[in-house]
C-alpha cells in the first residue's frame, strides 16, 4: 500500500533538528501525499516569526560535527558553524527556513503549533507565521493524522 498521508512532528529547535522534517513534508507533497507539520517544544522556533530567522546548528553534544565538545562550546562557534552550513545549503539550492516553510504551506501542507508548548513558553498566535493553520491540542493532532503515518523528529 502506498503511503497516502503523513503527519510530521518537529520537536527540536536546531537547524539539523528542523530541516529533515521540512524536507520530508515538502517531499511528501511533491509525491501527492497529504501532509501536516506539527511543531512542538523547541520545534516551535521554526514557525516563530522572529526566531525562525536565527536557527542555529548545535555544536555541543553533536558528534556529527566532528568537533571537540570544548571547542564547540567556545563563544560564536555555533554562529560560525551555522554560517558554514547555510552557505553549503545555499550552494545546493536548499532554501532558508522562512522561505522553505512558506513554500511548504503553499503546497497545501498544514502547519500547526502544539498548544501545550505555546502555553508553556508564554507565546501567542501573533508570535507565529501568518500562514499558521492553528494552535492545536495533541488530541486534535491525532485527529488530523488519522489514517496516515506519524513521523517524529
Amino acid at each position: 500500500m502506498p503511503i497516502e498521508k503523513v503527519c510530521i512532528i518537529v520537536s527540536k529547535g536546531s537547524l539539523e533538528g528542523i530541516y529533515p522534517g521540512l524536507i520530508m513534508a515538502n517531499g511528501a507533497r511533491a509525491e501527492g501525499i497529504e501532509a501536516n507539520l506539527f511543531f512542538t517544544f523547541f520545534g516551535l522556533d521554526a514557525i516563530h516569526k522572529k526566531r525562525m530567522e536565527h536557527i542555529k546548528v548545535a555544536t555541543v553534544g553533536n558528534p556529527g560535527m566532528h568537533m571537540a565538545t570544548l571547542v564547540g562550546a567556545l563563544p560564536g562557534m555555533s554562529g560560525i558553524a551555522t554560517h558554514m552550513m547555510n552557505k553549503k545549503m545555499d550552494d545546493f539550492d536548499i532554501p532558508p527556513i522562512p522561505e522553505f516553510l512558506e513554500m511548504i504551506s503553499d503546497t497545501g501542507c498544514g502547519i500547526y503549533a502544539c498548544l501545550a508548548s505555546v502555553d508553556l513558553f508564554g507565546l501567542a498566535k501573533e508570535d507565529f507565521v501568518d500562514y499558521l493553520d492553528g494552535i492545536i491540542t495533541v488530541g486534535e493532532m491525532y485527529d488530523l493524522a488519522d489514517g496516515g503515518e506519524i513521523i517524529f523528529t
Partner: protein
Amino acid sequence: MTTTTIAGQAVDRNDEGFFEHPEQWTEDVAVEIAKEEGIDELTPEHWQVIHFMRKEYVEKGTGPTVRVLGKTSGVSVKELYQLFPKGPAKVAAKIAGIPKPRGCI
C-alpha cells in the same frame, strides 16, 4: 516497461507511468495521459507548465522539482498544486512525457 498505443502513438512507459522515450510524446498523447491522471481538460496554464517541463528536460537532462517550477515557470507553487493536485512536478512530468524529476527539494 509497457508499450501502449495512446492517441494513435506507440508509447513505452515504466511501471510508474513515466515515458522511457520522451520523443514518443505528442500533444494528443498528453491530453490522454492527463485524463488518466484525473485532469479532464488541460487549460493554457497546464500547457504552460507542460511545455516548460519539456524545455527544462531538453536543456538540463532532468525535469524541474516543484520549487524550481514555482520559481521559474511563471506559475506559483499554490497555483501549481491547483493545476496538478497530485504533485505538480511528478504529474506534469508524466503528462509532459519526461522521466520523473529526482530532486529532494
